[in-house]
Every structure is written in C-alpha cells, then in structure tokens.
C-alpha cells in the first residue's frame, strides 16, 4: 500500500508540478495569480485530443505521432496563454492589484464556456494508450506512470537549464526582479512577460494532455481542481520560486494520495484545501521562498 501510494503520488505530483510552474513564473514576474491558468491546462488536453484524432496515424501512439502531438499542444497552449495575457491582463498593468485577478476570472469563465458550448459538455475519451504493468514488491506501476514521471522531470530539467544558463533566462530573472531597472539595461520587459506566459502555458497544456492520458477522459471543467491544487503546490514551495513549484507539486501529490489512502478518500480534497489555508496563514513564503517585506 505504501509503495503503491508513493507511485501514484509521484505521478500525480509531476502533473501538479508542471501546472504549478505556470502559476509561479507568472507570479514571479507580475505578482498576479493567473486564475485562467487552469483553463489553459484544460484546453491543452483538448488540443491533444484534437491532434490525436485529426491525424489518424497518431491515434496508435507511434513515436513520431507522439512527439508531434506534444509539440502541437505545447505551441498552441503557449500561444493561447500569450494571447490571454495580451488581451486581458496587459491593459491592466497600472490598475489596482485585484483588477487582473478579476479579469483572469472572466477569462476563465469564457474559456470554460467556449469548450462547453462549442466542443462538448460531456466527458470525452482519449485514444487508449497501451500500457504494460510491472510488479514492484506488492505495488504495480505501468508504463504510462513511468512516462509521465520521466517526461515531466525532463521538462523541468530543461526549464531549469533555460532559466539558469541562457541569456533569455537571465533576462527573465532580471525582469522578475525589477521591471524598470531591467528595462534600463535594455531588456524588453513586455516581451519577457510574453515569454513567461508562453512557457507557463505550454507546460500547463502538456500537463493537461498528460492528465487526460492518465485518467483516460477529459471534460470542460477538469481544470478547476488540478488548478487550485497546483496553486497550492506553488504556495507550498514558495510562490515565485521555480524549484519551489517543482518540490511543492511532488509534495502535494504525495499529500493527496497518502491522505486518500490512510485518512479518508472522500475528504482528500478537503485536506488539500486545509493545507493551502494553513500554509498561507502560517508560512505564506513557502518552503523555499525568500522573505519579502511588504513595500509601501
């Protein structure tokens, strides 16, 4: 039981970590909660489904088909996130702090209803992904779980390399530190913000696709719970901190599966939400977050 929950928790956790990265990067740069991120996650899954069914050869999950599907998801969900930013958040850069959050809620309603009205209001199945099961002690793990875990880890390592080693990553960190000063150094902060949204959206969309494959079906309202949980993960690790989001994601996945296994499966979401509230009340900076004093 313990090992089984550990495996499930790590699989779930890697999906949460991918979503949490989007929240944390946007928060790091704009200090806003991108409430619509959970819908990008949902739409990512729909783009994946569309790519898999539009091209019949892909449905059998050949390697090339698979790679192309993921690239399509990555590109379109990234572009969607960037256009949401341009349309709904950019005009509010100077507005009071709560305005972008309200705008994001509006975007979230719009995206969810677009899918519900024009695609389907029922859950839709994804083409079946053939898996083989392996036995580890008393627990079972299948190829899909291994794939989700390894793929997410690879994406996170890539992102880490990108942020710490490349020039773009450096510019992004500078923008997060201070918009005005980085602009004086010749960094175009608004294109950096767009890039942050692109990367965050792309990771969120891929997480949606992985989530759809894991559970076998997708629905227009599938984003809400994973979205809140990933936000919790971002807070848990220290919002604004990329490594924190990864750590928080895995931690939250484990908290969820273990509380489902050992405490009450009915109340696992209640426990997650309590973690969120307790974390925000007692240590809002998270595990890896730095102490930022409130500026006047």
């Amino acid at each position, binding site marked *: 039981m313990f090992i089984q929950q550990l495996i499930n928790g790590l699989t779930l956790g890697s999906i949460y970590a991918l979503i949490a990265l989007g929240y944390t990067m946007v928060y790091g740069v704009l200090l806003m909660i991108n409430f619509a991120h959970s819908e990008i996650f949902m739409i990512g899954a729909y783009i994946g489904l569309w790519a898999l069914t539009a091209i019949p050869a892909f449905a059998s999950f050949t390697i090339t088909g698979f790679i192309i599907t993921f690239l399509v998801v990555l590109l379109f969900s990234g572009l969607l996130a960037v256009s949401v930013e341009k349309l709904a958040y950019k005009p509010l850069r100077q507005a009071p702090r709560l305005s972008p959050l309200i705008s994001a809620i509006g975007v979230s309603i719009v995206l969810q209803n677009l899918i519900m009205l024009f695609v389907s209001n029922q859950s839709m199945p994804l083409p079946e992904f053939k898996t083989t099961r392996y036995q580890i002690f008393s627990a079972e793990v299948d190829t899909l779980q291994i794939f989700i875990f390894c793929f997410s880890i690879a994406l996170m390592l890539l992102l880490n390399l990108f942020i710490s080693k490349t020039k773009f990553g450096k510019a992004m960190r500078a923008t997060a530190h201070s918009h005005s000063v980085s602009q004086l150094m010749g960094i175009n902060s608004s294109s950096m913000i767009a890039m942050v949204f692109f990367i965050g959206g792309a990771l969120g969309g891929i997480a949606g696709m992985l989530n759809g494959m894991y559970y076998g079906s997708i629905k227009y309202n599938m984003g809400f719970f994973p979205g809140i949980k990933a936000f919790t993960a971002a807070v848990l690790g220290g919002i604004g901190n990329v490594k924190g989001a990864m750590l928080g994601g895995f931690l939250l996945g484990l908290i969820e599966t273990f509380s489902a296994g050992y405490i009450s499966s009915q109340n696992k979401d209640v426990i997650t*939400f309590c973690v969120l509230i307790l974390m925000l009340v007692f240590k809002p900076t998270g595990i890896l977050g730095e102490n930022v004093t409130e500026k006047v």
Partner: protein
Amino acid sequence: MKFKNIAIITAFITAIVLPLIMQASANYYAIHVLGLLGIYAILCVGLNITIGYTGLLDLGFMAFYAIGAYIGIILSAKGISFWYIIPISLFIGGTFRYLLGAPVLRLRGDYLAIVTLAFGEITRLLLNNLDFLTNGPKGLPRVGETVLPISIFSFTLRNDIHFYYLIVFFLALAIIVSYRLEHSRLGRAFVAIREDETAAELSGINVSNTKLLAFVISGMFGSLAGTIYAHWIGFISPESFTFWESIFLVCMLVIGGMGSISGAILGAFILAGIPEFLRPVLGSGFIDYRMLIFGLLLVVVIIFRPQGLLPSKRRNLELRMNKNSE
C-alpha cells in the same frame, strides 16, 4: 426633489406593484424570478461591504449563504419558528466568518481571495460528506421531515408572492443597514482601508479589527439570505453552493459597480434577471450562453469601466483623480 430620490421612490413603488400586476396576469414564474432576484440582491449588498467598501476580494461568499440555508432547514425541521432562526443563523454565520477571518485577514489581497475560495470549497465538500448532519448530496430536509411554514401573527406565508414581499422587506432592511454603515465613521474606515492600508493605520484605524468587522457583517447578510431562501424553496442540497455561484456574485458586483449599493442591485438584476426575462423571447438555448457573455462582460468592464455601470460617487471621483495625477 433630487433625481436620486425620484429614482429610489420609483424603484420602490415598482418593487411593490410589479408582482401584483404579474399575479393578476397569472405570470407566476416571473414572481418566482423576482424573488430570486431579491435574494441575489441581498447577497450582493452584503458582499459589497467586503469587496466594495473594504476592498477585500471574497471568492467564497456562497459558503455563508450555505451555512445560513442549512441552519434554516435543520432548525426548522426541529420545529423552531423562522423568527427565532434568523438571529441564530446570523450569530452562527457571523461566528464562522469570524473564525475564518481572524487568522486570514492579514493576508494580502490576492492570497485572501484564494483562501476564501478554498474555504468555500471546503464548506461544499463537507456538506457533501457529513451525512449525519447534512444528509449528503441528497439534500435536506430528509424524508419525513418538513420545513415549518413562516407565519406573521396569524397569517401564514404560502405563495411565491408572499415570500416575495418578505424578501423585499429584508432587502430594504439590508439596504438601510448598508447605507447607514457606508456613511458612518466605520464605513469611512472601511473605505480608508481599501484605499491605503498603511495610511489608514497611521490615521488611527485599527486595521485588522475593522477588516474583521466588515468581513463578519457581510457574512451575516449571506446567512440571512440563505435562511430565507431555505424557508422559501423548502429544499437545499450542496450543489446549489458551488464555487461558480460565488463567482457569479462577484460578477454582479463588478459589473454593477463595486462600492455602490444601487450598483450591487443593478448587477444582481442584470445577471440574474435579464437572462430569465429574455428566456421566453430568445428561447431557452440563450440561457446556455449567458455565462460566456458574463465572462466577457467581466473582462470588458474591468478594463474599460472599472468603476462599474452605476458607480458610487466616491469611487468615481477617486478613479478620475487617479487618472489626472498620472
């Protein structure tokens, strides 16, 4: 007479007379919708105290509506009269609001929004899971239990139109309380906190206590509306109190005008009323599109008219002054 007074009197007379006309023309559905509008208006006037006056974004207001509704049904099934349940519900709703608010109100605005959201979801999930108290997803009252009808002296409320007038009475009460509050010392303290917490603190306002007070008072409006709703409809289940309902209220406030009572009521009327009244004209397929339209409206209003459709005078002045100083 000033235009504002004329508008208020006209609105009041319409609220009294309109359902009589509908009753006469046997348009019972319209009366039901008007009653629901009244409930939404009470909720909006209450939520306006947190979001509009004090500037605290609350995304879980329906939790307190749910608490009020469940208290209403549970106590009513035990044979307690509506008029005793109201103060009990206000007290319990206020207590829950206090227990939530005391630790979390010192959080920054957007964090607070997420915490209230989480609390709203916790409440809904617990209502679903605590079978012994709430009968789970099957809702209350249980089979065999009945809700005690409301009676005023010897007159018993039976039809929608009776409840409509009860709701209008409480709405009027809510508006008066909210209006008096807005123009009191406390109300000015709320607004001062919304504008600048540090400056408010320096002017001698006890920020955390004042925020807590605003939070508790507005929660009580929520429980009040819940208790009335539960007595009126006579059946409740956790499904009625989802996160999207709380968001729906926020949409009403933002579109109507945060910080203004008339804006809050207008918002309730536009979002809850217009789709229902247009249903016979445009067909019920139109209803499916309403959330899409409201979502778009929310984005458009917050970008192009952040003060809402019917802004409060004070807020309007501030926004204009901010523009000039930039």
